């Protein structure tokens, strides 16, 4: 726990040093929330209440998709890639701390600060100006928070796996574009899974990506409730266990063939 706290402090100092950049990130988030809000409003003029979801639920889904990015997004892959590139990763590996755990602690610290400094103000804007509603009841709210934590952990491990790839591929910038867009699409960040055509939906339903945005937000707006919500949480948990195992194995393999560049 002390480790997490020290990384949180470190991330906070970083943000204070780059205040202006962070303010800009906030503006960025607001523009994106505004954009998706209008997309759904205009679409719903043609089919009000499409698929059993009303307009307010739908705009809430869209805006939350943008706002939650700051609560679940982590970037261990960039850190790993840049450490591999500069060769500084050997100092990380010498630390008396498991590397996977180290990355998790670091990412959690960064996420907590990002969520506090950018996420909460963005949510405030969403509640005040974009008509975002609260979860239907307290239970949904609690399940949502739990699901969001699982979503963060899922996405962290997916990113960590991408970062492990950096050790083999050395440059992951370009693979990342494809990766990001796939996460956004299959994760349901912009368009929820219930709107997907059947052949895409089948794929999206079984892959772990829907545990990042789609499940937490669906619980939030009350689309997934009761047994469905619990099943969805179970889905997230099972995939999390699988991804943790996969991360340990793949990182171990990557670690063995690590080539430190120059020196």
């Amino acid at each position: 726990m002390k480790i997490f706290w020290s990384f949180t402090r470190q991330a906070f100092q970083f943000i204070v040093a780059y205040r202006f950049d962070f303010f800009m990130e906030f503006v960025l988030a607001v523009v994106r929330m505004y954009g998706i809000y209008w997309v759904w409003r205009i679409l719903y003029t043609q089919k009000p209440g499409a698929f059993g979801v009303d307009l307010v639920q739908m705009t809430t889904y869209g805006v939350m998709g943008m706002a939650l990015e700051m609560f679940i997004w982590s970037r261990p892959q960039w850190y790993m890639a840049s450490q591999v590139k500069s060769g500084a990763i050997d100092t990380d590996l010498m630390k008396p701390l498991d590397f996977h755990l180290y990355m998790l602690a670091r990412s959690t610290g960064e996420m907590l600060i990002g969520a506090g400094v950018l996420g909460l103000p963005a949510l405030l804007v969403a509640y005040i100006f974009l008509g975002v509603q609260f979860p239907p009841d307290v239970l949904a709210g609690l399940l949502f928070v739990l699901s969001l934590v699982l979503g963060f952990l899922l996405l962290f491990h997916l990113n960590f796996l991408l970062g492990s790839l950096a050790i083999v591929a050395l440059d992951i910038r370009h693979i990342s574009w494809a990766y990001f867009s796939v996460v956004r699409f299959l994760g349901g960040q912009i368009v929820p899974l219930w709107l997907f055509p059947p052949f895409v939906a089948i794929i999206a339903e079984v892959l772990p990506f829907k545990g990042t945005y789609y499940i937490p937000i669906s619980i939030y707006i009350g689309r997934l409730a009761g047994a469905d919500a619990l099943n969805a949480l179970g889905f997230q948990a099972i995939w999390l266990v699988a991804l943790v195992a996969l991360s340990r194995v793949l990182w171990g393999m990557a670690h063995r063939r690590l080539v430190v560049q120059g020196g």
Partner: protein
Amino acid sequence: MNGFQLYFRLIQISLLSRMQYRANFIASILGLIVWNIVNLGLIGVLVAQFTSLNNWTLWELVFLYCLWILGHSLYSLFFSQARELEGYLIEGAFDQFLLRPASPLIQLLGRELQYIEIADMLIGLTGISLAYTQLGLHWNGWKWAFFLIAILSGAIIELAINLLIACSAFWTGRSRASFIIMSQFYGLVHQYPVDIFGNAFRVIVTGVIPVAFMNYYPALMLLDKLDRAGSGWWLGYMSPVVALLLVGIVSAVWRQALKRYTSSGS
């Protein structure tokens, strides 16, 4: 050597150095293609469920998306270095441009050819051709000419806006954050017709940072949708004018910026 020859010589050198990393070359092109397909896929899913987006049909949206991409790829292929100016200023590396007997602007822009934009260009051309047949368009010579001018204007508009933002680094020392915000405006205008957003947004992307002239307004003209703009129908023809206007502004700003440039030292 005149400016153009110098520019292409510099580009040639950078391309040769890039071709050494072939796996990276292929990975980056694939990455870009997946990215665009997913974006178009999202639009496709939405329109499939809701039939249209504010009376823009699927293929009209594809046309809008690809018209933006064509202008953007032209800009990005040749001039993407405009964004990197801040780095040169901070490191003091801009000094070397001033020491050589050639235009600093050409030296900056000639640093690199963003070769992967070829992928964007292919996607744009494919999308436009598909949309052209699916929409049953039959352009006359004048519309084809306007189409080409619109693409060229789009590239110039993006170059001018990005150079203006980059130039702000001469005064403030940094421009990265403004680019991040700008990319969001580009993203929204790129993917969605401007008329779905609120009035404030429309005014911004028309009059303040005129990104809408890269695809929305020329698309209104090319797709015979000018009546959607109401009394602003003439904006559909304005892209080349806006582009020229921006070139005038940016060259004045650039001259001022060079005049007040003081090296960061070191």
